[in-house]
Structures are given as C-alpha cells and as structure tokens.
C-alpha cells in the first residue's frame, strides 16, 4: 500500500515522542547550564601546571626544560627559563620558568605536552567555561593562572593522579636510597681511611665528601 512506509515511520516518531514523557532514556537532552552532566574522568581540555605544597610559585614541578614548548603542535606555549636554580621535590636544584604562557585560543587540547613532560609537571584540566571578551588578556594564561595544586589534580583525575604520585614517590625513594647508600659507602670508606691514618681531620673531610656525593647523585 502506498504510504505504508510513511505511516510506519510516523508511528516510530510518535512512540519516541510519547516515550519521552515516561522514559528517561528517550529524553536525552539536559538544560545546560542549570543542569549538568556528570564529568567523565578522563576528560581533557587545556593544560595546567601542577605544584606541590602551599606556595604555587615555589612548588611548581616545571623545571623549564622547554620540551613541551618544542613538541607542542600548534606552538602555543611560551617559556622563559630562569637564571638561578631552586630545589625541586627531591631537593635537587633546578631551573624554573620565569614566564610560562599558554595561549588557550591556539591550544588544541591534544595532550602532547603532558605526554612528553618527563617531570609530571603539566597536566590536562577539565575547566571549559573560559569564554571572555578579551582575546589577548583573557585567553593567554600565565604561570599564575596555570598553576594548580596537586590536590586539585587529585580531585579532577583521581586515578591518573594516584598513579603519578606513586610514580613520583617511587622515584624519590629510589633517589634517596641511592644517596643514602652512596653516603654510607663514602662514610665507611672515609672511616676506614681515617682509622688507617689516624687523623681527626680526615673524618670531617669524609663527611663533606659524602654530603657532596649525595648531592651529586640526586
């Protein structure tokens, strides 16, 4: 019969229309921004810098190695390296960024900066409501705006952050164990030397060298 297909199709739409009043599954839209969908854990949009501790600028993990700047496909990261060094989370003196800008209007959220970063310093945020009237002021995030605490990172990506923390703790433990072993070996050697020579002077020297080697190992 001509028109049968059309009627069948209309029955299907009617079913969906009526169904949307009773079944949640058929009513798929939400009233954004009043209503929001729950965040999916792996969601990424723009990068941010992770810091440890309370002081954002002192605790930045970034050592200004500029790998992300080089690898960034649309070249939206701009870093200036510091002249001096400050200690990082394992206590080793490192450079830090005096300027770290990300132009989020150019950023394409590809996550390559996160992948190439050897220091777990840059991660992906989930904040997406960034619209602003000012293209150059509002969309270029400097290091103050980019810095977010490790706790925040745990909040948005709990699984990933736990993995990262475990990895960093392991690394730190390894470094400390190595330093300790080196210090002990040096101290033992120095003690043996001191015993042989019998001078009090040598013990002080050994302690100094042990400290030095520990620093060097770190």
């Amino acid at each position, binding site marked *: 019969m001509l028109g049968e297909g059309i009627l069948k199709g209309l029955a299907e739409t009617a079913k969906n229309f009526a169904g949307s009043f009773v079944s949640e599954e058929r009513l798929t839209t939400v009233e954004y921004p009043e209503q929001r969908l729950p965040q999916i854990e792996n969601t990424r949009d723009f990068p941010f810098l992770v810091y440890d501790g309370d002081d954002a600028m002192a605790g930045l993990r970034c050592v200004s190695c500029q790998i992300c700047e080089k690898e960034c496909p649309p*070249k*939206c990261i*701009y870093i200036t390296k510091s002249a001096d060094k400050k200690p990082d989370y394992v206590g080793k003196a490192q450079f830090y960024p005096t300027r770290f*800008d*990300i*132009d989020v209007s*150019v950023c394409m959220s590809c996550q390559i900066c996160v992948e190439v970063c050897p220091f777990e310093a840059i991660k992906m945020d989930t904040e997406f409501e960034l619209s602003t009237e000012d293209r*150059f002021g509002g969309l*270029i995030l400097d290091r103050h705006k980019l810095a977010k605490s490790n706790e925040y990172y745990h909040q948005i990506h709990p699984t990933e952050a736990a993995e990262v923390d475990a990895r960093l703790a392991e690394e730190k433990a390894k470094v400390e164990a190595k330093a300790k072993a080196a210090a002990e070996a040096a101290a033992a050697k120095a003690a043996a030397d001191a015993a042989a020579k019998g001078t009090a002077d040598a013990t002080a020297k050994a302690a100094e060298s042990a400290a030095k080697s520990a620093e060097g190992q770190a």
Partner: protein
Amino acid sequence: MKSAAELLDELQGAMPGVKLALATNPSPSAQHSLVVAAEDALRVAVYLRDVAGYDYCSNATGVDWLDKETTEKVKTTRRVKKEVDGVEQEVDETVEETVKRVEPGCLEAVYHLYSMRQGPHDPHPPLVLRMRTANRTDRVELPSLSPVWRAAEFQEREIFDLYGIVFKGHRDLRRLLMWDEFEDHPMRRDYVDPDDFEYEPTPHDEVLKRAEEHRAKLAAEGAR
C-alpha cells in the same frame, strides 16, 4: 600480483626499449617503485591498467627533491710528464681533489596502484610508479595519467597547484586548493611565506623572527 622487479622484466619484455628503472626502498615497508621516463609513461600506464591488472590508482602525489650539493674527495690518477733523474718520463700521479657536485633536483609525481579486479583473495603491496621532471624550474612537464586512471584527475590538479608540475593531456588543469590568482607553489621545499605579519602572543622560531623585524620596522617608523 607480481613484485616491482618482476613487473620491470615483464614490461621490458613487452615493450623493448622502454625506459624504466627500479628504485628500491630501504625501509621495512619494502615498497619498491618503478621509475618511468616521461616519454614512456603513458604506454606503461596503459599496459599496467589493461594487461597487468592495476585498474585502481589509489594515490597520486608530488614530491619535491631540491638540488643537492655534495662535496666529496676524489682521487684522480693522471699521466703527467715529469723529469725523473733528468729524463723526461710519463708518470702516473694521484691527486686528491675536493669536488663540488650539484645534483640537480627534480619534481616527482608518485602513483600508488592496486588491483581491484584481483579482488580480496590476493593481498598485494602497492605498485609505486614514479615520474620525474627534468628540473625544478622551467622543464616541469610530465604526461598526465588521468586519461588512464580518472582517479588522478583531482590529484594531478592538486600536484599542479601545490608543486607546479604541468600535466600534459589533463582535461582540466587548474588550481584545486589555492585560489586562481595565487602565484607560487606552496608545497615546494623552498617556498617562502609571504611577508604578511600577524600579531601572535606566543611567537616561535620564524614567526618570532618576523615579529621582531616587524617591531623594529614600526619603531623606526615611529622615530621618523
């Protein structure tokens, strides 16, 4: 399907005097290619399509090979007249010279051919067919293979647009992606971007250089 080397023999047997060469590919993919001279390209292509069964041209593209300047030390032996012990003799003399050689670059059109006729039972690597222009500047003409494989029609237009290879016998050779008034060929390796400065807050490399030049120019104009 036959390998590129076997096809080379077959083609040379079927068309005596055809100018063909095998270009080997050292990568793990081992997709070797046939380099065909421009004047023989059309009849080789027709043979490949109608006899060898390569009825499907998957990909056609251009490659730009710049002029390569190589310097190498060459030992040459010459016969030199020399006085040895007061008697004039001809002696072999070996001289080491640094030779600067410029390998002329070329534009290359590359075609990847498959066979649809063979169907799904015979997986085979693509047959890569290459043609080279005489140089990169004025002798950039190649025969169009789009009469043989229509699939090359838009792709050859694209090569013409981006590399500047002129395909003779193409039914409608116009720019494909750039606008008609555009002059250069942007995919060439020595293409220089037009000097249109655009402010960028996070400049790098060349953009940074250009931004600095632009700023200097502005400052000079301001001083004046």
